[in-house]
């Protein structure tokens, strides 16, 4: 599984952080960081939920 973020669309609303804090983080600079670009399969449900919750639909999951 590969996590791809469209950083032009990302508004740092942190919905993904709330859904999958082990994969996404917003830091003090207000920017989103992807902690694991290829998270383990065990994180799939959380990452899918993060993608669904993203209000700008900036997250896509490959495979």
């Amino acid at each position, binding site marked *: 599984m590969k996590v791809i973020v469209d950083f032009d669309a990302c508004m740092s609303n942190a919905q993904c952080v709330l859904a999958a804090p082990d994969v996404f983080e917003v830091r003090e600079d*207000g920017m989103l960081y992807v902690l694991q670009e290829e998270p383990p399969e065990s994180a799939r449900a959380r990452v899918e939920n993060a993608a669904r919750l993203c209000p*700008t*639909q900036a997250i896509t999951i490959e495979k």
Partner: protein
Amino acid sequence: MRSVVIAGASLAGFSAAQALRKRGFDGTITVVGEEAHLPYQRPPLSKQFLCGEWDRSRLGLRIADGLKLEWLLDARAAALDPQRREVVLADGRRLPFDGLVVATGARARRPGWWVELGGVFTLRTVDDAQALRAHLASGGRKVVIVGAGFIGSEAAASLRSLGHDVTLVDIDPVPMHRVLGEDLGRACLRLHESHGVHPLFGAAVDAIVGSTSVEGVRLRDGRVIEADCVIVGVGAVPNVEWLRGSGLVLDDGVVCDSTCAALGAERVVAAGDVASWTHPHYGQLRIEHWENAIAQGDAAAATLLAAPGAGRPYAPVPFFWSDQYGCKLQLVGSPRRGDAMRVVEGAMDERRFVAVFERDSQLTGVFLFNSVHRVAAYRQTVAAAWAGLTAGAEA
């Protein structure tokens, strides 16, 4: 259960459809939508879309292949026949169902002085936003925004960035007064002022003035504010009229138990802006925000698929955000009017701070201003505060 009808083709309805499939439901799912569009994102309407940064095609929600949903768009649910278990559409078609998800959302409230007049807009649907955008395209408009809640405040920020002249009118003393209270609302007021908005607070609107197109807004004290564009953002009304006489309990929305099961019918659930459910911690609640539409759609679908009475309570920590002038405003929890507020991180003047709301020294909510990096921690804090309360109550 072989067939589910979802009344409402917006975020909550679509989320319920996704959740039904994810949970293995393989019967028919028919989604009825009053608008002619497939589900789309509303949050950008007052921001990226209004500013022209995003076009229409970017608003659509991603709809995975294989969901096998039957879409009936441009079709309004007009009645619910509880005996025959059918949704009756405005054109007379009848849709039988085993299970029903009510997700008909809310519409922009039109106050008593509302008139249909060129240049007067609400901002709720993509069609609303498209019409407003077209009206603004000639540039240099003199805009009056009535209502300084989230929509009005975001619209003010977007229109200032486009260079329009903006007057923000509200009967309350400060923006977002009902949600944030006086002190935080004043911080929001300063933000508008520093971006050149003309504030007009504590001012009641009496009428919209104009013959063929809008010419201004008349206040109750007789003043007329000149305008060639008026945006009315004074709240939303849940779309429940079609359910009158159906046996469902209606009171500022479809009244549900803690599991999102509608009172007054079997195998009927509700989600999103239209649902007023019993939150195990906050009591009766109706939330008009993005995350809730998705999460409550999930919860309602789970309840629909469970044995009657065996659904699980839906108990989210409410969360919403607003983007204004490049600033990020976020609220966690559900503070009520009169809760004590104090800043615990940063300072209001620095435009980077966190404030907590408390009642009887219990945490009820957290407001974050340009402090997104702290939101996850504070959401846990709010959830932990309830858990502490529950434990205390049981001890």
